[in-house]
């Protein structure tokens, strides 16, 4: 036994849809967490397992077809292998798709890593008439080969045994056979390898043959990482150019392609040796299902029904637990009010902390249900069909077919919607989709529309609200095109996507996926949201107003003791006046007054300005702030007649034109704090600030154009 006491670090590499994550789940069970790879928003799952006295750490690398570092996922996987030097790599292979899988295997072999080959989904391959000679494969690739069926948890112990055996046998390091590219190319590679070996500037390059191939492929990232110093370049570049010229002249093709073709040639050779296949229509049932789901006429209705179901489940069914959470939070607040001595600390605990925690967990039901739906779509294979159906219309906006789901969910709540952009492979699609999602008017903005449209547009309220939603969509379409041409320009990553066979999702993987999202939300975002909520609460609470214009407390006590018939109303209105004065005196209130010069040109009064600032907490707060500022108390909602009457009061200067500009502003301006933090989590701080500032400017300009333009043509 060698290194028995050491921790073993094992990375999992494999194609997307090879069942790599299922294998990872089987290996580690619940002992896993999700982090990001350093500096990028590519997810890294890490899990632990104790097996036969070894502490094993598993790292699930992003699913890739290759390791050429053209895409972020590939670069991340490759960098991990180079920098972190895992002891072993489990190469998870879809047994039914040997050719594409082995293409990645050859690249792993060339990097000189210790491989354990995992032939996963073995049962599907057998059903499809594929036989693989695993012993022969093991001999040819000089690596242990294990058969597994992750969905049924079969073969996992054998896989672990193979890893531990390879680790402890002491026969590791450099055992992979060299990949043959055909005799002519092999000679060139061997020749160049000798030069690399002798080159003094090849710092840390432990595998000269791999380096030689990278030089021929023109992989600048790898060569510049290892070839340091002018000498090294001078020494090798002559030889490299000579080799490239030779390849070009003899094959009349780009050397990069010659190498790729050579690699496929090698893979084809292995497959000829180890695989037998009888002709069975492998995807028969899957194809029949597919005929229905992507049918020319029925495809879209089925798609829309499924989307409708997920949307309704997320937001309608999610509403019940949300109410329970809200009721629980307010019950807890009532209890705390009754047991804590009155004062700043009690207010902070009740409104700041408990209120803040409430604002974090209230989104949980949405997130849990939406990700239940998404994992069902992904694991069953329907997600890629949905992308197949929606790619054409989404492409029009410069987006990917899969972007449809986050955008649709944005109508419910931007928080789970932005989190769901993770399903997109390309970073650029993720950024663009995340930036456009807030323009899908979320349900929290609806009360504001209902209030203003109801108060100023009477029977046309419905159409007015509809026009706001349409405006949001149109804005996203236009911005999608504009962003794609400007800040997110560059070569498109091609939309080439695997359409995996339909499969039954397993309960285990769906649950793990759901739990993972919940955990990310609570651990990565919960804390920040809590702190932000407390800060916002404090801004609305401080500075305390000690002396009021009128002695409300005394007047309230006086009213309570009186025998007037309208005593309750008097007390309520006194309390409301006091609340209004407190809010006006607070930092938020002062900020509202301070921004008056900015909102006057778009027709808003200071109350509207302040309520927009409070809308930063959550958009629906705009309505209750209006209630407070118009001295009607905080328990006001969008259907309150007294608030509608107060808004309509001509003295307040709100015309239908102003009301419309206000609704547009609410649609377009900076999303709520939780959405902003979700944006930061998914696409980083820089884009978060971009979204905040851009949307604020956009909202202001739109309201300005509507208000001033409307006045010019004589409206309002």
């Amino acid at each position, binding site marked *: 036994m060698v290194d028995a006491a050491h921790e073993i670090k094992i990375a999992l590499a494999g194609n997307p849809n090879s069942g790599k994550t299922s294998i990872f789940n089987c290996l580690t069970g619940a002992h896993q967490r999700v982090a990001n790879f350093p500096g990028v928003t590519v997810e890294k799952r890490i899990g632990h397992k104790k097996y036969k006295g070894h502490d094993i750490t598993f790292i699930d690398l992003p699913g890739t077809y290759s390791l050429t570092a*053209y895409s972020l996922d590939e670069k991340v996987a490759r960098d991990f292998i180079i920098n972190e030097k895992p002891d072993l790599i489990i190469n998870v292979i879809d047994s*039914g798709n040997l050719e594409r899988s082995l293409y990645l295997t050859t690249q792993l072999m060339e990097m000189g890593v210790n491989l354990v080959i995992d032939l996963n989904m073995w049962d599907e391959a057998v059903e499809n008439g594929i036989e693989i000679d695993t012993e022969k494969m093991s001999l040819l690739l000089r690596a242990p080969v294990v058969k597994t069926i992750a969905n049924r948890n079969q073969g996992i112990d054998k896989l672990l045994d193979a890893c531990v055996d390879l680790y402890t046998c002491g026969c590791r390091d450099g055992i992979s056979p060299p990949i043959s590219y055909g005799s002519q190319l092999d000679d060139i590679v061997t020749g160049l390898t000798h030069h690399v070996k002798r080159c003094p500037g090849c710092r840390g390059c432990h595998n000269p043959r791999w380096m030689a191939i990278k030089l021929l492929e023109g992989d600048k990232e790898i060569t510049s990482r290892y070839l340091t110093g002018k000498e090294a370049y001078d020494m090798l570049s002559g030889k490299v150019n000579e080799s490239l010229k030779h390849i070009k002249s003899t094959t009349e093709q780009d050397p990069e392609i010659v190498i790729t073709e050579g690699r496929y040639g090698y893979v084809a050779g292995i497959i000829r040796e180890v695989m037998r296949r009888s002709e069975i229509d492998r995807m028969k049932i899957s194809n029949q299902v597919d005929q229905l789901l992507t049918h020319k006429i029925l495809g879209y209705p089925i798609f829309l029904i499924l989307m409708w179901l997920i949307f309704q489940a997320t937001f309608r069914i999610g509403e019940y637990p949300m109410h329970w959470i809200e009721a629980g939070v307010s019950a807890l607040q009532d209890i705390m009010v009754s047991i804590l001595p009155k004062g700043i600390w009690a207010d902070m605990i009740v409104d700041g902390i408990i209120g803040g925690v409430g604002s974090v967990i209230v989104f949980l039901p949405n997130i849990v249900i939406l990700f239940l739906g998404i994992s069902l779509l992904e694991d069953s294979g329907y997600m890629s069909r949905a992308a197949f159906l929606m790619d*054409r219309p989404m492409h029009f906006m410069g987006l990917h077919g899969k972007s449809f789901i986050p955008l649709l969910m944005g109508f419910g709540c931007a928080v789970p919607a932005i989190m769901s952009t993770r399903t997109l492979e390309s970073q650029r699609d993720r950024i663009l989709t995340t930036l456009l999602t807030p323009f899908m008017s979320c349900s929290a903005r609806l009360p504001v529309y209902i209030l203003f449209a109801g108060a100023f547009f009477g029977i046309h309220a419905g159409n007015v609200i509809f026009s706001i939603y349409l405006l949001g969509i149109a804005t996203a379409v236009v911005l999608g095109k504009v962003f794609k041409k400007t800040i997110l320009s560059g*070569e498109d990553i091609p939309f080439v996507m695997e359409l995996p066979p339909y499969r039954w999702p397993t309960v285990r993987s769906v649950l793990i996926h759901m739990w993972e999202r919940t955990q990310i939300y609570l651990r990565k975002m919960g804390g920040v949201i809590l702190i932000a909520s407390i800060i916002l609460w404090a801004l609305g609470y401080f500075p305390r107003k000690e002396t009021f214009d009128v002695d409300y407390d005394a007047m309230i006590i006086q009213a309570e003791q009186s025998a007037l018939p309208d005593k309750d109303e008097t007390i309520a209105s006194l309390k409301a006046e006091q609340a209004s004065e407190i809010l006006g005196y607070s930092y938020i209130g002062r900020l509202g007054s301070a921004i008056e010069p900015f909102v006057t040109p778009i027709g808003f009064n200071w109350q509207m300005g302040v309520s927009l600032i409070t809308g930063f907490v959550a958009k629906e707060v705009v309505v209750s702030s209006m209630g407070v500022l118009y001295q009607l108390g905080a328990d006001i909602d969008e259907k309150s007649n007294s608030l509608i009457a107060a808004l309509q009061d001509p003295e307040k200067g709100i015309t239908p034109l102003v009301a419309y500009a206000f609704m547009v502003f609410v649609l377009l301006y900076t999303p709520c704090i939780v959405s902003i933090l979700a944006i930061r989590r998914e696409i980083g701080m820089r884009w978060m600030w971009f979204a905040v500032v851009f949307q604020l400017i956009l909202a202001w300009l739109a309201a300005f154009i509507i208000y001033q333009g409307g006045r010019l043509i004589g409206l309002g």
Partner: protein
Amino acid sequence: MGETMNLGQLKPGQKGRVIRVGGYGAIRRRLYDLGLHSGETVQMIKAAPLKDPLEISFGNGHISIRRSEAALVFVDPVTE
């Protein structure tokens, strides 16, 4: 064997042998990495209801590809 055409010109059900993959950089790389190398036989399955993208099959899997990218893959139609 017929005239060389691009992948997008195959009719549903028709097969073709890949002759060459055009384009540059990331696009060509990606097509190769997914298994569209010369000599591979591909079959056109269908177009999406809005005509784009296309579903093709080769090796042992199905792939969705936009017409603009399919136009980079040149094939010789195979008659069976």
